[in-house]
């Protein structure tokens, strides 16, 4: 079908410099290109204008509640794991005006939002692709699709990067989401660095991807190139910082609402909401109607979190007054109820909630503790069927 492009599934090899050409080609086609950059001691996602903006030669080290960037011994462009930002902040922004209204005399005019921006995301990891697909199900399926989200999503060009480094808090292998991007991308890159060689294997994932790749200088991928790329992700898969046993996890969490571990984690949890905001799948929002002194008003949607007291406020007060019940709600929704609600886990194994928790609470460790002690809890008569 792709008259002026390359077919889906085609694999080619491009040089390091061609990443700059790729950014230019996307910009020329009207996409706002967003990719990794170094800022404030972290690798974040922001506008990128060319190759020089990318975090060449940088990597990160991550542990529970700890993140640092460091120099690599090579000039890898994507030699880091996921950072503090996720693509969620562009597709599902932290603060979004839904509409404005203006009053003139007795007349009220509603001003709709445009949402006509076209994003190209450069460097989407496999876990992040999985997260975008999770949010797609939340926002676009069912009887009431989110029109603003859908419009942004339909205009988004996704360039995946298969991971060459596993972060200290990564567990995509456990969640079966990575480290190799399987579907949902327009183009997928694997960075190949060996001695003097610095190239990328590119796989076409869509017609739009094929059309963009057709504009770049490239050579067909040889079997050795494909094998080298497979070796990169195989090595990463073996270096995961964390594991999460998912076998029977839904039943385990749903069967242990009174487990003593919830009290234990509540002692440590700050209820600060960082985990939910860095999570690439957490989608909860609150709506605020604001009127100004000049006769204008607007409806704004903001990220909300199940860790706030207001979140569960209904007539008569908040349902989840204690941190214990809020942490339990978050974790059991993410790992268990999500499956009932949307057909998949809400966790993609990116590890952000572990790294960016100021006190280093580790969801994999909490799950493992509940698993280890679940028998005891039932013997003690605390378990509720």
């Amino acid at each position, binding site marked *: 079908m792709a008259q002026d492009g390359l077919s889906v599934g085609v694999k080619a090899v491009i040089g390091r410099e061609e990443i700059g050409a790729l950014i230019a080609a996307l910009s020329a086609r009207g996409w706002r290109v967003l990719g990794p950059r170094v*800022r*404030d*001691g*972290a690798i*974040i996602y922001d506008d990128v204008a060319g190759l020089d903006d990318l975090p060449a030669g940088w990597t990160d080290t991550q542990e529970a*509640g*700890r*993140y*640092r960037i460091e120099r690599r011994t090579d000039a890898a462009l994507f030699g880091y794991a996921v950072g*503090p*930002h996720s693509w969620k*902040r562009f597709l599902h922004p*932290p*603060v979004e005006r839904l509409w404005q209204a203006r009053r003139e005399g007795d007349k009220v005019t509603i001003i709709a939002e445009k949402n006509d921006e076209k994003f190209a995301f450069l460097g989407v990891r496999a876990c992040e692709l999985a997260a975008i697909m999770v949010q797609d199900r939340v926002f676009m399926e069912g009887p009431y699709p989110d029109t603003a989200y859908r419009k942004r999503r339909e205009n988004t060009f996704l360039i995946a990067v298969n991971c060459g480094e596993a972060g200290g808090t990564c567990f995509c292998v456990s969640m079966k989401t990575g480290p190799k991007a399987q579907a949902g991308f327009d183009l997928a890159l694997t960075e190949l660095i060996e001695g003097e060689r610095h190239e990328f294997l590119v796989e076409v994932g869509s017609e739009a991807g094929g059309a963009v790749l057709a504009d770049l200088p490239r050579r067909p991928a040889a079997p050795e190139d494909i094998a080298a790329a497979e070796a990169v992700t195989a090595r990463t898969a073996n270096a995961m910082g964390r594991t999460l046993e998912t076998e029977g996890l839904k039943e385990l969490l749903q069967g242990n609402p009174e487990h003593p571990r919830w009290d234990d984690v509540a*002692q*440590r*949890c*700050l*209820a*600060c*909401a*960082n985990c939910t*905001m*860095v999570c690439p799948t957490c989608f909860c929002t609150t709506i*605020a*109607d*604001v*009127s*100004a*002194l*000049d006769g204008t008003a607007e409806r704004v949607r*903001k*990220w909300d*979190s199940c860790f*706030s*007291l*207001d979140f569960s406020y209904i007539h008569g007060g908040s349902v989840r007054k204690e*941190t214990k019940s809020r942490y339990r709600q978050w974790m059991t929704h993410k790992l268990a109820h999500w499956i009932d609600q949307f057909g998949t886990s809400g966790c993609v194994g990116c590890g952000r909630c572990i*790294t*960016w*928790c*100021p*006190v*280093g609470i580790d969801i994999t460790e909490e799950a493992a503790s509940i698993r280890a002690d679940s028998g005891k809890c039932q013997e003690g008569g605390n378990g509720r069927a």
Partner: protein
Amino acid sequence: MAGKKRLAVWKFASCDGCQLSLLDCEDELLAVAEAVEIAYFPEASSRMAKGPYDLSLVEGSITTEHDALRIRKVRRQSKFLVTIGACATAGGIQSLRNFADVAEFVAAVYASPHYIKTLATSTPISDHVKVDFELRGCPINKTQLLELLSAFLAGRKPVISADSVCTECKQRGNICVMVQGIPCLGPVTHAGCGALCPACRRGCYGCFGPTENPNTAALAAEWQKLGAAPRDIRRAFRTFNAAAPAFRTESEAHGE
């Protein structure tokens, strides 16, 4: 205009910074003056009209017997009473006296201590009269003040979140300084400043006081892991909101 609501701004023990936030509205000040009758605001105008007032903004804490009586008079004349800032809401920096002997302070500072008549404590307005809403901060945020006024005039609840500063950091896309090794009070501090200090790569100083359910003990334990001494933790919790119950309790748990 008969329908114009009457506004009063009062000062108790304070630095005037929060009242200045109203004058600092600049671009919006004319709209405010248009929307309400500024009936009593000595900081801004020598025209001081008598009560009753529809809305009183109260700055400052109670540190003298005279002020303890005066706040009751203010309350009687005000339909709505809103405290503005850390002094009025939590007792302010001057509540450091609550942890010490105020007579010693007076003796150390004044040449003629016998001229000074002051209470042993600095207390928030809510310890003395009913308060309808509290605006946090040292100083308050002018956007929140305008939101408060707009909401009051529209007869709606102000859209002012009680979440942690972390939510504002994440909205701005700030990188968490705590996870990068800098002790920060953000996770236990009430939002409102727009995450000013973390945006400048500094830990939060807690100017907006404790959030709705602050786990200060867990945060203090993490500060210790980052190398903070008990004295540092005590001092961090003992600033503009030293007398806010959650911060006071935590500061008292750490020695010099």
